[in-house]
């Protein structure tokens, strides 16, 4: 449904940010991108959102090539990026400019209720907490009913409790309309709580290192065995992705660690 075919990105200054990314994502699937810094996660998001264009290869949603921002793709940035001069409701309705006013208001109110902010429509963004602002940002991206929702480290600035609550809320929203979701995160727990597949990337240049499927049924119990297994596999892959030769180093490292103690 979302198809990345041999996507590469080299910046004008010669930095090779992504090399040969191939990925097929199904309708309604949630995919998490994890990896060390500089592995091109954010670059990949910008390419899928159409804000940047790939140097080679192509990205398509249901066969339609993405070369510029596309109505089928909604974006939630790392920061809420609400427009401070618009009320919360007007921010949510920002992408609905083509609709009549009454419909815009009704849609925004409905979305506010679904993200648990009913009654906040007339507030200014500055009056909301960081978590509330990010919920508004998610609502803004979802109301035009995109087929793909991209989230670029959307919860990284929030505390653990707020983050956990927002994970539940995001899954609730996803369940209602089942868009395809691609989420960038540096939090392995976040990836496993949310995703069907976790894509581990490796840096310099950014490549896909390993794809881990998370088999645990939702809602996921972070203490359950399937969760624990998936987490261990992702952590292991991450560990190896940051080393130059993926050999049996982890074992050696743990041996050294024992001696050091």
């Amino acid at each position, binding site marked *: 449904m979302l198809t990345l075919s041999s996507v590469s990105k080299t910046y004008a200054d010669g930095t090779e940010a992504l090399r040969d990314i191939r990925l097929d994502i199904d309708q309604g699937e949630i995919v998490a991108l994890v990896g060390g810094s500089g592995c091109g996660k954010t670059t990949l998001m910008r390419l899928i959102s159409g*804000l940047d264009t790939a140097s080679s290869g192509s990205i398509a949603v249901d066969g339609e090539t993405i070369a*510029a921002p596309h109505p089928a793709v909604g974006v939630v940035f790392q920061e809420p990026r609400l427009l401070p001069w618009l009320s919360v409701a007007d921010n949510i309705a920002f992408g609905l*400019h083509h609709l009549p006013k009454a419909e815009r208001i009704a849609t925004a109110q409905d979305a506010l209720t679904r993200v648990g902010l009913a009654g906040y429509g007339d507030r200014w*963004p500055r009056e909301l*907490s960081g978590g509330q602002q990010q919920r508004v940002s998610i609502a803004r991206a979802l109301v035009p009913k995109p087929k793909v929702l991209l989230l670029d480290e959307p919860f990284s600035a929030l505390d653990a409790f707020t983050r956990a609550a927002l994970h539940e809320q995001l899954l609730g929203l996803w369940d209602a309309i089942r868009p395809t979701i691609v989420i960038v995160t540096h939090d392995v727990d976040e990836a496993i709580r949310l995703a069907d597949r976790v894509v581990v990337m490796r840096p310099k240049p950014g490549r896909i290192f390993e794809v881990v499927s998370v088999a645990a049924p939702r809602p996921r119990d972070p203490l359950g065995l399937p969760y624990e297994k998936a987490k261990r596999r992702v952590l292991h892959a991450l560990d190896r992705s940051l080393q130059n030769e993926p050999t049996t180093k982890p074992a050696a490292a743990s041996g050294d660690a024992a001696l050091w103690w």
Partner: protein
Amino acid sequence: MSDIILDQDKNNAAPSAPRSSVARRIFHYALAFSVPLALALGWEFAVRAGWSNGRLMPPPSRILDAFADLTASGELKIHILATLARVLAGFALGAVTGAVIGALAGVSDIARRTLDPSLQALRSVPSIAWVPLFLLWLGIFEASKIALIAVGVFFPVYLGVSGAIEGIDRKLVEVGRVFRLTPFQMTTRILLPAILPATIIALRAGLGLGFMFVVAAEFMGASEGLGYLLVDGQQMGRPDRILAAIIAFAALGKICDGILVVLTRPLLRWQDLARSQL
């Protein structure tokens, strides 16, 4: 003022009820007026007690008398209206050209590299230096005065608008791109609201300079206007009239600025700033 300061603390979306207490407001006004009132009463007392004859620095009662005379004879109204008309005409001219050229320099790199160095050089020319040239070019009547005021208003507005456009948050522009705004929509829905606060401050600075330049303009030969009243007071040896004109300038400038602030406040209600009332 008070509710905005509190607003900054409550990031957690507590219900925001307006809580302007009347008593606090009165107290703030009392503070604002305490210094001029104390000075005025002190000087009045000093002259009455015979410590000074008050000829060169007349006491408040004599200034009030001068005000009363000027008002009764209708002169004050004529002068104020003449000055106001010049300031507004010059302000309109300077603000529009400043905003247009500032926008051009802010949007286009080539325009900025072409225009900005020359404009910055011209900006440092003192206002009075233009007077002889404008008199030669435009004559001694209104055109030269309005041109001089427009020059004064132009620069702060130009600087404010071009700087505001350069300072627009790229991240908000990207939001516009994600929602596929046309260039026109991008301008009206993102760029203009984003530069509005800086533009309004620039307009206020421009208006203030307009009032400074109107005096220079009226010094260069006017038969009416508050600047003329100043020159006239000097030639006639009437410091009370000079002071009356100065106070009229202060009041007029403050009122015009206040009107600008009140007119633009609804546009800036969204701002998260400590100052809301100036």
